[in-house]
């Protein structure tokens, strides 16, 4: 655990310098622990792959005392916990919505059914949320279906699209430009003002994609 200055009222804690599950587990543990403590004078926390950015009230802490407080408050010891919330997301993996499925099938020499099977059999970790509100970076995608970003990004990726970029996968919470490979679509809201938490996902959750049929997708409100 390494502290680094970020700004007049922010400090960033690094837990490592590569993307892997072990470091993500530390980020998650520290983030959930601090959230639980609900310390006065902590204004914002942004967890990501290897770090947590913390914005604090400088009328409560200075740069030295915040480090002391964080050292005292973060406990990275203890057993692995397997009680992460699992969010299940129904996906229609059809070529009408999975715009890059056919191309991916050619590149990977796998059938579309095999790609679907591989993508939906993994329990993904939420590593970070950003880029768009509710856009969760999920990993790790099986190497067999890992695909680089498109050389020329699309101007508009439809809301609900399930996408792959290298070993990461994600759901687009709204229409957006983007360069990820689209393999399916969900009707599930990932950024929803009706939810108290705004998003059903949070760093530390796990995500399972559940393949559904075309008729089920339409029944759920999907549009082809």
């Amino acid at each position, binding site marked *: 655990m390494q502290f*680094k*200055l*970020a*700004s*007049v*009222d*922010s400090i*960033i804690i690094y837990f490592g*310098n*590569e*993307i892997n599950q072990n470091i993500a587990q530390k980020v998650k543990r520290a*983030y959930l622990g601090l959230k639980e403590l609900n310390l006065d004078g902590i*204004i*914002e*926390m*942004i*967890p*990501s*792959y*290897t*770090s*947590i*950015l913390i*914005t604090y009230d*400088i*009328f409560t802490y*200075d*740069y030295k005392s915040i480090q002391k407080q964080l050292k005292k408050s973060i406990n990275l010891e203890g057993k692995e916990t397997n009680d992460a919330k699992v969010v299940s997301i129904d996906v229609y993996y059809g070529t009408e919505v999975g715009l890059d499925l056919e191309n991916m099938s050619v590149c990977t020499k796998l059938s579309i059914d095999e790609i679907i099977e591989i993508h939906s059999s993994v329990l993904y970790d939420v590593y*970070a*949320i*950003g*880029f*768009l*509100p*509710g*856009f969760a*970076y999920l990993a790790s995608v099986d190497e067999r279906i890992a695909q680089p970003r498109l050389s020329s990004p699309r101007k508009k990726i439809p809301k609900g699209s399930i996408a792959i970029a290298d070993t990461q996968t994600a759901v687009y919470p709204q229409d957006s430009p983007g360069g990820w490979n689209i393999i399916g679509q969900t009707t599930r809201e990932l*950024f929803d*003002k009706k939810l108290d*938490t*705004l*998003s059903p*996902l*949070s*760093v530390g959750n796990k995500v399972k994609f559940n393949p559904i049929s075309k008729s089920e997708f339409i029944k759920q409100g999907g549009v082809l």
Partner: protein
Amino acid sequence: MSLEVINAPLFATLQDKGRFSYTSIGVTNSGVMDEYSYLYANKILENSLDTNIIEISFSNVMFKSNVNTAVVITGAKCEFFINDIAKRGWQLHVVKVGDIIKIGKILEGTRVYFGVKGGFDVEKEFGSNATTIKEELGGLNGDKLKKGDILPCKSSTFKHTIRLKDKYIPIFKNELVLRVILSYQDDSFQEQEIKKFFSSTYNVTNEFNRMGCKLQGDKIACDINGIISEGITFGAIQIPSDGQPIILLKDRQTIGGYPKIGSVLSIDCFKLAQVKPNCKISFNPISIEEAQSKHKEFYKSFSV
């Protein structure tokens, strides 16, 4: 009782101090770009300091008053009329039912703040009225003000007028020095690059909005091309591979993968919020201790 928007403003949004505690799911802080002008507007109106306000970025916004109350404008210097009579900024003005309030041409600076006694009675979304258009959050339906919008507010009576002393009214120049705390990936910049950063003068480009301000000038080289995406704070200075600094402001994205050389002191970002493209920007280093003391001084001056 309300104020009604009677023309079609180009870009005016309801704002406040910002939306906090949702950055972990990618929701930006938003809020007023120039807190100095915002806080003084509320102080002049004797409002609580977190009262909402309208931020106006382009000329010409007109309101009809359906209420007896008081209003103020602060921020950029601009034409300001009540029933076609020119009025001063940074001063409380009484308005009556039927009055027409016009914020005309912006003369110096870029953002005008228009506040009303007691603020606008608009329901907050996730703790704030701050409008973030890309997130469709805050304001009226998550959007900028449009012709016909009704902004409810309470009536108030006034016996005296309040005007800010001239020495507190900012003067807008075409050059600005920003104080920078070296931070984040500063170790990945060679000494001569840091020296260059602090000795060069940069131009503000047209790529300047509520998200950030792109500068143009001497290229700053970084030893690394990108970083693993991490949280971005207000004022952070990204150095993308083209070497041209970008200062991230209120509507910034919450995480990003460009290296950052440091962060502009927040209270200096409020001054940056008022500059125009082609303004000359230079940077001075400041220690974290001094930065925190300046920051505290700034906010303390409003609480007394």
